[in-house]
C-alpha cells in the first residue's frame, strides 16, 4: 500500500501532548469529584425526596442519560456564547461533564442504596440516629462501597468521553492531537499515539481509584477484601 509510517514528528510536539494529557487529567479529575457529589445528592433526592423532588430528579437523570454528551456540550457552550456570557471552554467542559456524569452516578449510587438490607436502617433508627445521621453514617458509606467498581468504570468512561470537549475548543489531549494533525498532516500516526496515551490514562485512572478505595474504605484495607 506504499504508506510510510513516520512518528519522528512526535519529538517536536511532545510538550503539546503532555499539556493535553494533563488537561485531560484535570478535566476528568474535577468532573469526577464534583460529579460524585452532585450524583450522590441526586440519588438521595431520588430515594428520600418528596414526590416532587424525586420526580424532578428522575426527569433530570432521564433527560441527561438519553441525550448525547456532545449535544449537551454544544447546548451549554454555544448557548452561553449566544447569551453573551463568556465562559472559558475548560470550565464549560467541566460544567457539562459534571451535569452529565452526575446523572449516571446518581443511578449507580441509588442502586447501592437500595441494596442495603432493611435491618441496617431499623438498627440505626433504634440507636436514635436522625435521618441525616443515618444517611451520612450508615446509608451512603455502605452504598458507595457496594457500587465502587461501577463508579470506577463510570469514571474511566467519562475520562474517555472528555475527548469530545476538543469540539468546544478545549485543548485537552484530543484537541492537542487535532492541532498537531493540522500542522503535520500525520493524522493516522498522531491518533495512534494519542490512543496509546488514553489507554495508559485509563489504566492509571483505575489504579488511582483503587488507591482511593484503599484510603476510603478502611475495612477493605484492613481485611484485604477485594472491591
Amino acid at each position, binding site marked *: *500500500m*506504499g*504508506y510510510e509510517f513516520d512518528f519522528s514528528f512526535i519529538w517536536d510536539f511532545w510538550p503539546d501532548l503532555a499539556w493535553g494529557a494533563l488537561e485531560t487529567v484535570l478535566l476528568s479529575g474535577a468532573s469526577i469529584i464534583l460529579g460524585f457529589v452532585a450524583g450522590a445528592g441526586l440519588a438521595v433526592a431520588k430515594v428520600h425526596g418528596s414526590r416532587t423532588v424525586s420526580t424532578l430528579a428522575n426527569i433530570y437523570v*432521564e*433527560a441527561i*442519560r*438519553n*441525550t*448525547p*454528551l*456532545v*449535544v*449537551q456540550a*454544544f*447546548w451549554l457552550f*454555544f*448557548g452561553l*456564547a*449566544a447569551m453573551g456570557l463568556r465562559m472559558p471552554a475548560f470550565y464549560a467542559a467541566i460544567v457539562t461533564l459534571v451535569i452529565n456524569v452526575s446523572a449516571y452516578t446518581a443511578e449507580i449510587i441509588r442502586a447501592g442504596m437500595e441494596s442495603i438490607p432493611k435491618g441496617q436502617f431499623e438498627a440505626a433508627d433504634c440507636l436514635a440516629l436522625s435521618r441525616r445521621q443515618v444517611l451520612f453514617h450508615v446509608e451512603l458509606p455502605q452504598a458507595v462501597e457496594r457500587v465502587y467498581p461501577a463508579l470506577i468504570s463510570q469514571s*474511566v468512561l467519562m475520562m*474517555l*468521553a472528555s*475527548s*469530545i470537549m*476538543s*469540539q468546544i475548543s478545549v485543548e485537552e489531549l*484530543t484537541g492537542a*492531537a487535532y492541532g498537531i494533525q493540522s500542522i503535520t498532516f500525520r*493524522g*493516522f500516526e498522531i*491518533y*495512534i499515539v*494519542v*490512543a496509546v496515551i*488514553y*489507554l495508559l490514562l*485509563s*489504566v492509571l485512572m483505575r489504579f488511582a481509584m483503587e488507591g482511593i478505595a484503599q484510603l476510603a474504605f478502611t475495612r477493605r484495607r484492613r481485611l484485604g477484601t477485594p472491591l
Partner: protein
Amino acid sequence: MGSSVTIAHYILMLQGMLWTIGLSLMGFVGGTIVGLPIAIGRISQSKALRRSLGLYIALIQGIPLPILMFLCYFGISVAGFNVPALVAAGMAMTAYASAYLAEIWRGSLQSVPKAQWEAAECLALTRLQRMVHVILPQAVKISIPPTIGFLVQIVKNTSYAVVIGFAELTYTARLINNSTFKPFVVFTVAAVLYFAICFPLSHFSRRLERKLKRA
C-alpha cells in the same frame, strides 16, 4: 444577529436523524457480526484465544470513540482508499459496539446456570449442538434487556462522528447553529430528537429487566 430557524432547517435535522439511525444500525449489525463470535470465543477452552480476545476488548474500551473515528478515517485514507466519512464512522461504530456487545453476551452466556451446561453434556450433544439448542436460547433471553440498553449507548455515541464531519444529527445541528446562531433552539431540538429515540429504548430495556428478574 443570525437568522431564524426555518422549516428547511428542521427538515435538515430530520435528515440528520435518519443518518443517525442509519449509523446506529450499521454499528449494531456490524457489532453483532464481529461481537458474537468474540463473545463465544471468550468462553472457549483455549486460553490463548480468550486472552487475545480480552486484549481486543480492553483496547477498544480503553480508547475514546472519537479517537476510533479518527483512526478509521485516517487509516482508510492511509490504506489508499478514498471513501465517505460514513464508512469510517461505520467501521468505528462496529469496532466500538463489538467490544461492548461481546462483553454483554459473554456475561449472558456465563449466567446460564452451570447445571444446564452439564445437563447438555450428559445428553451426548456436540459442543456446537449444546450451544445452539440448550445454551443460546437461554442466554438470548438474559441478554435482551442489556442489549437494548446498549442500543441507547450506540445511538447517543453516533454523535461522536461529528469529529470526522459525518452529517448525522449532531453535525447537522451544529452547521445550522453556525448559520442561524440560535443554539438553544437548535440543540434543544436535536436533544429532543435523540431523546425520542433513546428514552423508549431505555424504558423498554428496564421493563424487560424487571420482568426477567421477577420470573
